[in-house]
């Protein structure tokens, strides 16, 4: 029997429409809008000013704290301005806007596609490269990767898990990357293992990508200590805690990080970015983005420069269909609906998903019939119906005691609710209030 996590989970229609579309390099945009806060943590501070000439790969904003990441220019040209622009979150965020002229790269970046198999690196050098290159978790959480590579004192890393699950329906960016850049990704995995000082690595892939599983299984024969683990298809297996449970059968305790059970998890996209940073000296300035949807004429996977406007990608996939009712950045379960299609692609953008009008709105809310489906599917063992009720009543103590902070916002409860209740909306509200209460208590 295939491995999977035990508690809860759902199986939404997979709709991997773009699974057979090879990665195409998207056109370089005319103007690149590069946000300073593309990661969790403090936004980077700009080190260029209006009128400066920049090259591809040049640092334009520097990491401004422990949890922060460098930002590089993904294009060459002139800095037009540094201004607040609405990004995918719907809020105005500071961005560096560059008018593109040509495509001139920094000389130290190796642009050849030859595979560099040299693994003779020191741990500290790799971590430093990862930090310099501004690599963040490309699965969507965008946590700066170098922090995960520095194991805190008192803890030991035992195993590196590479997340190739891609459990979100529709998205195929990781799938294509594993197929087309498999060897590079495995070398990146090896580099991450060296950085962490672990001898075991495992790549978890859901069984709906048999071609990727087979391909990587062939490659890992040449790389000691890496195992490809096929997993049963179940959402949210790409969640860090669920993946650890599925692959090594350990449960990360509430409120702690995976290192507590000796595991470090990185996404396949991150492993590839690490390969490029260490072997090719190339910082994180582009990523694979899936553009898909039932009404999209050519569901595609693009290699996109950071800062490219979303509209340009939609055009490249066949244009915006007439009956579009919602555009989502990311997957259908956890993605963010965009209010403005001009928002730039950032390090965390894994997909652009178009919904038709009839798929776009929610159904009418009905009374809870206490069917307990939400309790059954919650992968964290919470009671979504209760959290919603208690949040509605603003009974914050109960909300906290019932572990609202453990919620990973996967949306399984809402997906499965027969009465179409807005469970996750309320849980988010409760999490933010309880989070504030906890923080103020600590002060």
């Amino acid at each position, binding site marked *: 029997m295939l491995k999977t996590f035990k508690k809860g989970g759902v199986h939404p229609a997979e709709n991997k429409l773009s699974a057979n579309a090879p990665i195409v390099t998207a056109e370089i945009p005319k103007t690149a809008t590069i946000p300073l806060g593309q990661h969790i943590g403090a936004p980077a501070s700009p080190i260029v000013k209006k009128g400066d000439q920049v090259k591809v790969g040049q640092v334009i904003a520097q990491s401004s704290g422990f949890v922060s990441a460098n930002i590089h220019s993904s294009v060459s040209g002139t800095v037009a301005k540094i201004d607040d622009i609405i990004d995918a979150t719907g809020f105005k965020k500071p961005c560096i806007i560059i008018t593109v002229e040509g495509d001139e790269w920094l000389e130290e970046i190796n642009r050849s596609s030859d595979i560099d198999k040299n693994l003779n690196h020191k741990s500290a050098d790799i971590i430093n490269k990862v930090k310099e290159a501004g690599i963040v978790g490309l699965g969507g959480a965008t946590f700066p990767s170098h922090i995960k590579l520095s194991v805190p004192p008192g803890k030991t890393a035992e195993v590196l898990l590479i997340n190739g699950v891609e459990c979100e329906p529709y998205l195929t960016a990781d799938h294509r990357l594993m197929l087309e850049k498999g060897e590079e990704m495995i070398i990146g995995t090896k580099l991450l293992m060296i950085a962490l000082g672990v001898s075991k690595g495992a790549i978890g892939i859901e069984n709906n990508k048999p071609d990727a599983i087979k391909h990587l299984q062939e490659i890992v024969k040449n790389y000691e200590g890496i195992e490809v683990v096929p997993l049963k298809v179940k959402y949210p297996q790409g969640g860090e805690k669920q993946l650890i*449970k599925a692959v090594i059968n350990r*449960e990360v305790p*509430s409120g702690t990080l995976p290192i507590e059970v000796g595991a470090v998890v990185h996404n396949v996209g991150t492993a590839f970015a690490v390969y490029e940073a260490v072997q090719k000296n190339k910082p994180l300035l582009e990523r694979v983005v899936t553009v898909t949807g039932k009404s999209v004429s050519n569901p595609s996977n693009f290699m996109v420069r950071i800062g490219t406007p979303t509209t340009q990608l939609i055009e490249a996939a066949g244009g915006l269909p007439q009956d579009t009712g919602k*555009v989502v950045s990311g997957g*259908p379960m956890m993605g*963010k609906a965009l209010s403005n299609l001009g928002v730039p692609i950032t390090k965390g953008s894994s997909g652009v998903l178009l*919904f038709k009008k009839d798929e776009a709105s929610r159904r009418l809310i*009905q009374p809870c019939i206490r069917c307990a489906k939400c309790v059954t599917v919650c992968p964290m063992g919470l009671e979504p*119906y209760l959290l919603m009720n208690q949040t509605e009543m603003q009974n914050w103590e109960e909300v906290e005691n019932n572990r609202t902070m453990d919620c990973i916002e996967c949306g399984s409860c809402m*997906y499965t609710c027969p009465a179409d209740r807005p469970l996750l909306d309320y849980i988010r509200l409760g999490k933010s209030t309880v989070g504030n209460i906890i923080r103020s208590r600590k002060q």
Partner: protein
Amino acid sequence: MDKLINVSPSPHVAGDYSVKKIMYGVVLALLPALAASIYYFGMGAIVVTLVAIASCVIFEYLIQKFIIKTKPTISDGSAILTGLLLAFNVPSNLPIWIIVIGALVSIGIGKMSFGGLGQNPFNPALVGRVFLLISFPVQMTSWPIPKGFNTGYADAVTGATPLALMKEGLGNNETVSNIMNSIPDHMQLFYGSMGGSMGEVCALALVLGFAYMLIRKIITWHIPVFLVGTVFAFTGILHLVNPEQFADPLFHILTGGVLLGAVFMATDMVTSPMTPKGMAVFAIGIGVITVLIRTFGAYPEGISFAILIMNACVPIINRYMKPKRFGEEVKNGK
């Protein structure tokens, strides 16, 4: 595309589930048992079912429209289900006016007075049934004997249920094996050839309904299995202690409302606990109370009371029977 695009928060897709689908799924699961009732009790079963469903739906409509003044939601199927379950819990020769009163109590007091669908603490059909049992004890306990599907509504011959025979016999200091002579054998009981509430007699049909609901994932196995298991274990122990004083466990499961209660009444989503652990406690409680009433109480049958008593305990069960949280029990030494 016009300028209005939807920007609701995630998730952006929903599964193909609805309250309506669940309600009609349960109705579908009840059809084998309905067919069995018609087969055994004839016209009476049809009349009682139609009257109960129609009056439940009409009362829900009228109450929502004229008393609560909201948009009637009779199309969600919950009133139809309540009506069907109420019919299943009464004899097939019950006078129409009594059925109508039962429907009014079920819908009016059992459901709408608490705020309608999802708000009621007690199973509405059982509230109706118990109200009728206490108010009209004669009509509610004159059970038609199965005489085939061409039996007319008015000309049903009545007799006692196996449970009533057992209670009466034991009360007259007869032995179990003696009483068993006047009761159909276990195979007959399994097929449902006995007196009783119209929907409860045919174990075979009820088990079919259970299987259907399991396959459709409408209910989980916990409540029916724990409930029937408890009745089996408890009556089994009593039977082993004194086989002439206490009937055998299979007799207890196949007669009366244990199977109907376990599969369709206790599993009512609104009035049962939210976690498997809670469901187990709930079902074991029902099983124990049922056997206590049957063997030591005044009534021959106690499943309705047992379910209503445990319904009242559901909030406290939910409070203490929490699901196992992720990361609560850390395994493998780390």
